[in-house]
């Protein structure tokens, strides 16, 4: 499904400036052939996604607590639209509450990542998620494997 020759198109929606910086630094340091687009809130993300002539991303990293449209609202809208059926959604949040994990799982997110507190761990997570065989991951998905543990 994903042509490996193509540069991966990755989106990140996160209102925290530092987290966006950590994320892009990590992507940069990973030196993978990726295209990263950053959004500072959910509304911006959704405005972008509904544009007709964009190239759809491969993976969307989605923060949950954002001003305006929250992560879960964005997730619901994305999953309600068949145009985005091939977009993998990785929840990227500080929270590791059971409720958030369960809700996003039910709404159709593909993986749940708790923001690490170590930069090398962050790099490891991003690397693994980007290289993940989504088809394989999704076919065996359950609430236990949904939560990504480093």
């Amino acid at each position, binding site marked *: 499904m994903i042509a490996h020759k193509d540069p991966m198109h990755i989106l990140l929606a996160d209102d925290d400036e*530092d987290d966006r910086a950590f994320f892009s630094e990590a992507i940069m340091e990973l030196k993978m052939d990726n295209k990263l687009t950053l959004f500072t809130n959910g509304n911006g993300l959704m405005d972008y996604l509904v544009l007709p002539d964009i190239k759809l991303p491969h993976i969307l990293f989605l923060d949950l607590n954002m001003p305006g449209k929250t992560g879960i609202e964005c997730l619901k809208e994305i999953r309600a639209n068949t145009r985005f059926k091939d977009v993998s959604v990785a929840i990227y949040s*500080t*929270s590791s509450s*059971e409720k958030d994990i369960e809700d996003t799982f039910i709404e159709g997110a593909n993986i749940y990542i708790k923001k690490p*507190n*170590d930069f090398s761990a962050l790099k490891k997570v991003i690397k693994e998620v980007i290289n993940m065989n989504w088809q394989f991951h999704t076919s065996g998905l359950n609430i236990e494997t949904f939560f990504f543990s480093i």
Partner: protein
Amino acid sequence: MKFLKLFKNSQVFKLALGVAILVVCYFGSKFFSQMQKLTSTLELIAKSNDTQLELEKLLSIINSYDYSLRNYIITNDESYLQNRFLNRGIIEEGIKKLKVLTVNDPLRKKDILTLEKLINYRFKLFRETLIAAKSNNVDQLGLKLKLKRSNDYTEMMKLFVYKVINSERLKAKFQNSNHQFELQDSLMTAFLLIILSLLILLLSFNKTNIDIEALKEANDKLKLLNESFNTAEKTAGFGHWMVNLETNTYTFSDNLYRLMGVEPNAFEPNLENTIKYFHPDDLEYVTKVHRESLINHQSTSIVFRFLTATNEVRYIMGVGSFTKDGNGDLIKIGVNYDITNQYKKTLELEENNKELKYINTELESFNNIVSHDLQEPLRKIQMFISRLEEKEFDVLSQQGRDYFSKVRVAANRMQTLLIDLVNYSRTVKGDKVFVETDLNKMITETLIDLSINVEEKNAVIQIGKLPTIKAIPFQIKQLFINLVSNSLNYSQETQIPKISITSEIITEEEASEYKIINKEDYYKIVVADNGIGFKQEYAEKIFLLFKRLETDPKYSGTGLGLAICSRIVDNHNGFIWAKSQPNEGAKFSIFLPKVDMV
């Protein structure tokens, strides 16, 4: 029960009385008929005597007539003959009398007719004799013959009369003896009658006496019951009332008056007099409910307020229901219960509940602050530390590197503390859902979570077969995580850490320590290690919040881990017990009930 018996008794008594009266009536009528018989016997005797007397009289007249005739024949004196018609009249009269006397006796009647014929014939003889004697030339021979014949006839008449008299006498004698017998019989009956009447009188008196006694006793009991009921009402804060729907009369119990703040019987019990003791706001509602119930006869249950004579507000729970009294009249019985205290307590509880809810919300938001808002900047700090460590560590002086390492350790410690605090607060929170939980699965998940730490310490973990229990899964997992982490943390540097998690049989000593009556009711899970251990005297302290035994910085710990364990076991209605000696490892025994005892 006793009343029933009494009733039955009185039924039996009524029956006995009825029988006795019947017997008395029987004897009475018998006595009456005996008396009548006695009278008729006496009459018979009197008649018999009269008959005899009359017969004698007839005979004597005949005789005297005979003498008069003979005297005339001898003396030829006419004066002897002057009474002869008179005598004949007396005889006619006597015969008439005799006929009346013997009207009921056919045999005797016949005798009298015979006698009448005899007398008539005798008088014919008298006349013939007289004619013979009066003629001028007296046929002496014929006269003698006539006299002789007259004489013989008289004798024959005498014999007949005496025979009749004798037979009358016999009859009278028989009647007399009969009379004697009947007299005795009647006396006996009269005696029996009197005895029986006396007996009935005595029995009735006795029965009445007994009934009065029983009634008195029942009355006393009723009085006592009433009194204790009054006391009970007073003590329990109850009052009751009744209204007879037919007569529209009300009855109030003493305590109902007291509930209204007045003395018992302070006013005539009726709705109008009570109205002023209802709280003005409730009056309309209460009277409406009451009046409607009097029409549709449905039970009522309301809560209202009395405004007592002393201006005190009392909350009253009133229930009313319908029944029929002894006369079959429909009555409504109501019970009013003073619930002022309960009401106030409920208000207080509601207030407390509100406060508790508020505190809970506060706690919740505090948890959120700890779990999210506090962790967020900490995570950033840690991220920047890792960035600095990677990029700028080399440019720092040795002292700068030392400081920097300490910053990192402190930040990590703060993170652990925050995680533990969140975990602890999660064990306090209310959402405790018990489900079938396989402890084997819980321990497997625990070891996956702790795999890095286990590998780091090269620990050997031994797991026995564990049961499946009703539990809160995430708490049980937390329990295992904390206990295994604890064992890993406090391992001895000189030995490879060995940790075993097994299910064991409860010993007698443990059963008595925890007052476990039936050992089969509990599971016992043991987490044992070969770590540094502790003095047995601290076995209870280690479960207290923020209580740490080791102060050496090489043993990291927040003082929350075992406190969380204790809470979790508590949430499952179980016990946890630690046993240890310094440098001899520690053994944690967890007792969890088999059946859900929540």
